[in-house]
């Protein structure tokens, strides 16, 4: 089978603007898009740059846009694309550092902003918590996140407002809010009670659609909103008394 790979290339220090470059690629084997990219780099142009590590959809390195769809290159089989023209672009909403490598810094900064770590009640670990599986199951979908940034790249709100924290960070916050061990308190996390936080989401659910790990980040954002409203009602109620 013969394919044309149309890859967006850009080296900010050298090129004026990003440009597509075509590579002809032939294979008779079942290959992942990542393997094909590595073959092209090895045999045709060793300057072609992209990130990768685990090749099994768990390290989150190789998120990109493949024929308009967000996905990890490693888990995309080229034959499953059912076309001989494969267009590959880096994740949008982030600056290109080189070819398919984007600057993830804004994504990590957003994560940092939600204080993405457990606020345990006790300072020292004792002899273990008592918790039930059903409590852990509530955060199951969120701990499946691999921080690949596909949701951030696909989010229309991030596209128009770079201050918006984005789906991954907010879903991570919800994971902790829902964790029975976490004692950060509503006051602490209600800093996301803003238009660049939980209320920024347009609820068009692009993040749910593109997530390669079925995290459904928008569920987390919805959950944060529900908790914020509930917290407000409760505090009004308290003041009323």
């Amino acid at each position: 089978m013969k394919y044309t790979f149309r890859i967006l290339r850009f080296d900010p220090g050298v090129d004026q603007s990003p440009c597509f470059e075509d590579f002809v690629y032939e294979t008779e084997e079942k290959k992942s898009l990542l393997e094909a990219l590595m073959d092209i780099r090895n045999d045709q142009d060793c300057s072609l740059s992209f990130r990768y590590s685990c090749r099994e959809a768990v390290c989150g390195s190789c998120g990109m846009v493949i024929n308009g769809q967000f996905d990890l290159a490693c888990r995309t089989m080229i034959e499953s694309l059912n076309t001989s023209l494969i267009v590959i672009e880096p994740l949008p909403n982030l600056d290109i550092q080189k070819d398919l490598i984007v600057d993830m810094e804004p994504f990590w900064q957003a994560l940092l902003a939600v204080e993405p770590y457990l606020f345990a009640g006790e300072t020292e670990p004792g002899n273990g918590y008592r918790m039930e599986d059903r409590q852990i199951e509530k955060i199951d979908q969120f701990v499946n996140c691999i921080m690949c940034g596909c949701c951030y790249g696909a989010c229309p709100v991030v596209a128009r407002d770079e201050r918006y924290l984005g789906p991954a960070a907010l879903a991570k916050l919800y994971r902790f809010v829902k964790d029975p061990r976490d004692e950060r308190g509503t006051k602490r996390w209600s800093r996301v009670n803003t238009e660049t936080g939980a209320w920024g989401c347009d609820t068009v659910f692009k993040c749910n659609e593109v997530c390669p790990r079925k995290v459904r980040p928008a569920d987390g954002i919805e959950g944060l909103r529900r908790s914020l409203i509930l917290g407000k009602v409760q505090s009004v109620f308290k003041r009323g008394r």
Partner: protein
Amino acid sequence: MITHDILVVGGGLAGLSAVLSSDPRLSLAVISRVHPLRSHSVAAQGGINAALGNTAQGKDDNWEKHAFDTIKGSDYLADQASAELMCREAIQAIFELEHFGVPFNRSPAGLIAQRPFGGAGFPRTCFAADRTGLVIAHTLFEQALKRQTKVYEEALVTELIVENGRCVGVVIYDLASGQILPIRARAVIFATGGYGRVYLRTTNAYINHGSGIGMAYRAGVALKDMEFVQYHPTSIYPTNILITEAARGEGGHLINNKGQRFMAEYAPSAMELAPRDIVARAIQTEVDKGNGFEDEYVHLDLRHLGQKKIDKRLPSVREICLKFGGIDPVETPIPIQPAQHYSMGGVDVDVRCATSLPGFYAAGECACVSVHGANRLGGNSLLDTIVFGKIAGREASNFVQGLERKDGNEKSMLAEAAAEKAKVDAWLGRPGGKMAHHLLHDLKIVMSGKVGIFRTRKQLEEALEAIREIREDYGRAFISGKCLRYSQAVVNLIEFGYMVDLTEVITLGALLREETRGSHYRLDFPKRNDAAWLKHTLLSLRDGKPEVAYRDVQITKYQPQERKY
């Protein structure tokens, strides 16, 4: 020049564990060739062992029994005091991970759930479905964020800098800028992981080249027990992505082309839950006898577990099978074959994670304490990274605080970096020669073909010769193009030099060890020989050549006995 008290090289579990245990008053930085969350630790699936005794079948478990299983599993090559330390520390380590936020699965009583694993007398493996490595790595990374840890990501360490017999820093290749520069430190901890990618068939990530181990060797530190290479019994055919041991722990069966559960012949009482060396050899033997499918693989059958259990306990296994194998394990057996998975050997360290080079520490897969001996049990590698990562961070902190001698000399450190840069420039300047990926492929063919599950003197001698020829080829390496930014070719060529060294050490160690023990199976010496070989192999670089020495195994109370399962 960038200067820190402690440099932790590697952002996986061992590295992050070292970060969290180091003295927060010291200036510390992590250097990683990828973002920490892209480290191979995230691919660990099945779990982490600790004798919590949280299940009905496991209520009589304790750390001594865990130590016994670990030592027996190691085919008695583990240093027993070290294995005891790891197993004793395991219990508190698990509670600490839980306290950091790891979402372990729970037992009906609300405690941390535990599942059976190979070679273990009790259900002892704590887990978070089949993504245990992922959740622990993310949790430790979160804690490192909380500590505002400085991370130099996408920077490959290219060598250790040694001055007056002490480690004073490293040279790095910074991928984003393309620069090669030194970083000064008073202590360096290597948590650089394994070398799976020297084999054709491996469960390891693409980044696992093992160059860290080679850098230690080049700096004069001994490598220990490198001939012990673990093959995981169940990697999916043909991509060799790992199918966790938990699939058998939860009740999966191995079936040959005659429909038999063939483990009955090899380990009649433990069956599929015999240790990995035994199960991997059994599978390979079945395939070699013609009892496999397509002469390549056997079946791992999970169908009788039912969709509900598979989805709850093994969701990633199902996802991997669907995405990468095109089959649904709920309906179809999984085609599996053994593949390189783990290195029992590594940088020679003592129980404090210290090497023979002052200021240089190592922990995790790149190091060899030794707690895994000739064969590691499933669920003990995550434990090793957590327990010994922590010790490394603590010990390096103590070392720095007690240090009076002055820091590395700036001029000579810059000269080291310049020499590295000159090497890279030579590759870029050559009009033609051997490309990185061709060299790598040649090496993998040798290692998979001649230094595999079953070994003979003839094959090992041929391998040594081939490796030395490949070293000659490396002298003719070249890179087409001029760009130094994000160049995988530069990364691969720098690492390749170290890979040649460490494959030589693996092969030489295997050639010298004329016995069969754990993962090291010599067809020409098929019995364990305690009288001659109850000792560790130590290979060091002296005058450009590997020099061998041996060290007796430490025995406490577990006398070597025949290993039956």
